[in-house]
């Protein structure tokens, strides 16, 4: 490809400050006279507040503001970070504080006080009388005829999304075999290192409020927060310092409106920092989904009909859920070709904490179901699991059902080939060879440990077009020393987007990477409107704007150089900060000299390139993950021995960042497969594991060997051919593990996580 900066493993722009501990996160900040905010949370899963008395709390010395439903603007809103777009179904069912609690942890009052202890005491002094209602902790209970209503939606169904392509009944009639299976995936949390829900708000004398917040979406959070507060968008200023991981949890408003309202009422800055427990209790998780898949297929492996009925547990407030049902359908539709496809998605309210975005946005859920079933289909028909996938997935040049646009590039086939070789698929799937190998290595046939290999495929997006807008804005200004600032609403939350965008700018400008400085902190008063970090869009969408802004600056730079060197601009090139005549490289001038002349020559001006636009497309990315597991048939423990992950990411702008994204995501994917599940008491709705002791994310010691293979099927429309990688690393992992378990011991578990107890139960059932 021959790029100078793109494709290089340059150190991340935020590496030094983070590894040295110097980075200042929102929670590290302080302002003079800053107060501490705290939220009073419901102990009940479902209850009407009959009486609330804050008199004692208000009269406690040191308490500067006490808020309840009485004090919040009566403006319903929706926390999901969506731009108004065709695919955004934004049911407004929230208030800043509620008068009816809908889950354990629902916020019903907030205080600001001089210190944490006073704030906590003030919470204790608030008297609340509840009329407790039945807790609807699962979708069956919520959808029952006589179930009490959580909101106004009949039978607690907030939305139904039907999609029909062709005629599935005909398709099932045409099939040789029809498979029908039900899958269930649980509620899991993003658990970023920095707890979710950290905001510091400061009102000013002019009716504006500034909020420092750990967010993925500075501009959209500005708009939603302003709306909830009854302010105009520009009256809110969002500053996003470094963020300690997000994975979707900060994809929208978290607690910014509470912090802002407390600050406005108190007339002082307020820090509102959720604890780890609160970040479990009161912030958005991945959606639990029950998926019923019905698939008709010919003996040769051609799909005649594919159908999914999905019940999506959205929790207590709508937020993302009705819109989220769209991508859930999209993932299903786009994975395999079939003339007849039908999807019915029901979004359901329950008395659990509301669900939102988590890396993959519905895709890991759907891929677990689809790829588990495809594996069973291959086994039942005696088809090669690789062949059935290669035969049926849509390829480059075909229409991609997710967007209805043509697929620009697809590296899946190459990925499947390379990853299957790397895991040793041929030998390991062959049971006879395997047995001989085991015996040769002293593993006896009656050993309780059985090995198996499995795989799953996935495709993902590089943005959310055409469902959602994907606006990005970038300004590149070249300083008088020839170095450049990149002004961008940098919503990097640890994934490395700021680094990749800096590389894009440097590459396009012809500057060294070290000489381009991105705004590390996003500030909505400074940077142009940007959607933020969602849908793996930063490299593709942000990269598009950054590249064009850099190109615009470069054009002006070369125009000036052309005057100085007296050659047409078209004959000039820039590299490493030097502008040269292409045919006569000895005729050169530095970018610094040209820029200096621009600033202080006859027409003083700074060379600036500015762009705000949506990217041209949404090229899909692909992955094939292969896993080897060892199942202990006596303990039920599944040990993942190795993961080979082949990912088509388009051009890898920074391969080290890309590999980091994939490996980190695989850690979450294995957790999703084996250990993670947020649980409630079925009767009371009290969370059972809102802590790191009992919510089991994997540690470094639990990680298997991970081999990443980058397949760079460059896109046509992306900056330097880039597509995406942010989310895709975990999408196929759980399905691949489930399929490897099937290969090892012949059990099919259709409900995540694959706990030892489920393994033992399935083994027992199989034995009988």
């Amino acid at each position, binding site marked *: 490809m021959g790029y100078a900066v793109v494709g290089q493993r340059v150190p991340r722009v935020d590496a030094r400050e983070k590894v040295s501990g110097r980075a200042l996160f929102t929670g590290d900040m302080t302002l003079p006279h800053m107060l501490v905010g705290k939220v009073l949370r419901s102990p009940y899963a479902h209850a009407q507040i009959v009486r609330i008395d804050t008199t004692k709390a208000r009269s406690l010395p040191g308490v500067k503001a006490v808020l309840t439903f009485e004090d919040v603007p009566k403006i319903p809103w929706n926390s999901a970070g969506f731009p108004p777009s065709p695919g955004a179904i934004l049911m407004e069912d929230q208030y800043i504080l509620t008068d009816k609690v809908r889950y354990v942890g629902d916020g019903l009052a907030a205080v600001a006080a001089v210190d*944490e*202890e006073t704030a906590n005491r003030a919470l204790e002094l608030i008297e609340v009388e509840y009329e407790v209602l039945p807790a609807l902790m699962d979708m069956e209970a919520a959808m029952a005829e006589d179930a009490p209503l959580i909101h106004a939606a009949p039978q607690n169904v907030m939305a139904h999304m039907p999609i029909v392509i062709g005629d599935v009944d005909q398709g099932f009639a045409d099939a040789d075999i029809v498979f029908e299976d039900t899958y269930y995936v649980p509620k899991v949390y993003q658990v970023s290192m920095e707890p979710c829900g950290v905001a510091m708000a400061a009102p000013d004398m002019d009716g504006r409020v500034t909020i420092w917040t750990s967010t993925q979406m500075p501009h959209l959070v500005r708009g939603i927060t302003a709306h909830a507060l009854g302010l105009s968008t520009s009256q809110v200023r969002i500053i996003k310092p470094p963020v300690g991981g997000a994975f979707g949890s900060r994809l929208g408003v978290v607690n910014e409106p509470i912090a802002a309202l407390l600050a406005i009422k108190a007339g002082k800055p307020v820090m509102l920092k959720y604890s780890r427990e609160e970040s479990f209790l009161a912030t958005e998780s991945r959606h639990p989904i029950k998926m019923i898949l019905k698939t008709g297929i010919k003996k040769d492996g051609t799909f005649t009909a594919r159908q999914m009925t999905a019940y999506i547990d959205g929790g207590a407030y709508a937020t993302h859920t009705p819109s989220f049902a769209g991508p859930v359908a999209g993932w299903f539709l786009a994975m395999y070709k079939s003339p007849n496809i039908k999807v019915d998605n029901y979004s359901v309210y329950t008395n659990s904490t509301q669900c939102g975005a988590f890396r993959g946005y519905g895709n890991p859920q759907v891929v677990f179901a689809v790829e588990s079933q495809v594996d069973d289909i291959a086994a039942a028909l005696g088809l090669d699991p690789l062949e059935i996938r290669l035969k049926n997935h849509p390829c480059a040049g075909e229409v991609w059902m997710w967007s209805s646009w043509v697929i620009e590039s697809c590296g899946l086939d190459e990925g499947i080939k390379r990853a299957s070789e790397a895991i040793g698929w041929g030998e390991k799937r062959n049971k006879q060879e395997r047995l001989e190998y085991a015996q040769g290595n002293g593993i006896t046939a009656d050993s309780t440990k059985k090995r198996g290999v499995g795989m799953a495929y996935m495709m993902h997006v590089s943005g959310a077009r055409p469902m959602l807008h994907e606006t990005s804005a970038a300004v590149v200004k070249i300083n008088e020393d020839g170095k450049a600032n990149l002004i961008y609403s940098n919503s990097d939350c640890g994934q490395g987007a700021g680094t990749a965008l800096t590389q894009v700018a440097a590459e396009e400008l012809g500057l060294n990477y070290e000489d381009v400085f991105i705004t590390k902190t996003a500030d909505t008063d400074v940077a142009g409107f940007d959607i933020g970090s969602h849908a793996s869009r930063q490299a593709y969408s942000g990269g598009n704007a950054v590249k064009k802004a850099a190109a615009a600056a470069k054009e002006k730079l070369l125009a000036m150089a052309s005057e100085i060197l007296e050659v047409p601009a078209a004959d000039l090139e820039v590299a490493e900060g030097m502008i040269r005549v292409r045919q006569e490289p000895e005729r050169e001038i530095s970018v610094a000299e040209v820029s200096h002349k621009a600033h202080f020559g006859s027409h003083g001006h700074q060379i600036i390139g500015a762009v705000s636009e949506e990217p041209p497309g949404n090229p899909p990315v692909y992955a094939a993950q292969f896993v080897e597991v060892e199942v202990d048939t*006596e*303990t*039920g423990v599944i040990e993942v021995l190795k993961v080979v992950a082949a990912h088509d990411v388009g051009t890898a702008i920074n391969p080290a960042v890309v590999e980091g994204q994939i490996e980190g995501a695989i850690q979450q994917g294995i957790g999703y497969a084996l*250990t993670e599940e947020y*649980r409630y008491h079925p009767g009371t709705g009290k969370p*059972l*594991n809102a802590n790191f*002791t*009992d919510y*089991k994310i*994997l*540690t*470094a*010691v*639990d990680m298997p060997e991970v081999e990443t293979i980058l397949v760079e099927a460059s896109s046509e429309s992306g900056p330097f051919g880039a597509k995406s990688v942010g989310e895709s690393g975990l999408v196929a992992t759980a399905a691949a593990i489930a399929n490897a378990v099937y290969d090892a011991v012949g059990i099919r578990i259709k409900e995540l996580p694959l*706990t*030892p*107890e489920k393994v*033992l139960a399935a083994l027992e059932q199989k034995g009988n």
Partner: protein
Amino acid sequence: MQNFNYLEPGSLWEAVGILEGLEGKAFPLAGGTDLVRTFKRIGFREHGVINLKKIPELSGVKFDGQVMSIGALSTVSELLANSEVDEHFPVLAQAARALGTPQIRNLATIGGNLCTSSPASDLAPALLAYQAKIIITGPNGEREVAVNEFFKGPGQNVLDRGEILTRIDLNLPVPGTIGAFLKHGVRKSHEIALVNTAVLIIPVRGSDKIAVARIALGAVGPTPFRAWQAEEQLAGAEGGLPQFEEAAKIAQELASPIDDVRASADYRKHMAGVLVKRALFQAWGGKV
């Protein structure tokens, strides 16, 4: 940060005096890894801490060739760094290695581990297998309690008003003693045991027979306990998988675990058997 009362006695007697006077209002502080969590639950404001770390008698590990005396304040990391522990009490070293995370091991003390009296303590089964003696100092002077009499229930032990655990004494096992510690959890690290077990076997010299076996289990009853009946089954028996399976079955029946978010009682009970069998087999020299 929250305010609380803090006391820092310089001697054991001073600590005992303070503790006796403030019973229920102030708690001894060792590594704090459990106490801070307790305070988060019961509230800092109303309670105080009595920092034990300035009391010289409570620190240090001494070995005179026959008895190892472990000061209550010895941290799990100190046990791991001590080559005599590793050499003479390897099952305790294995248990220490399985406890928590590096950060926790650097703070957590052996005294705190016992006084917390969690049924899932990782050190307790090893100390039960080594038949440790617990030395306690209180208003009435010093007394000694066998470790199998120390625990009284989840979070409960024999410590009376004003008493402090000062040290733990271990007798050197007879030469040729073998053993193993196994812990079962969802993760490989940073895990509270669903079941743990420590076993020691004293083989009959020059034969395949077992003279004495000791089997201790944790997390499957209100306290960590010795599986006496299983031990008796093995005394005088041949060593080997069938015998170990038999003993494991008996041990499993002695387990009375609870159902909770971590695992079902049935699974814990099943795993108690599997773990005891595997620990015995591993100690005997087999692989698992």
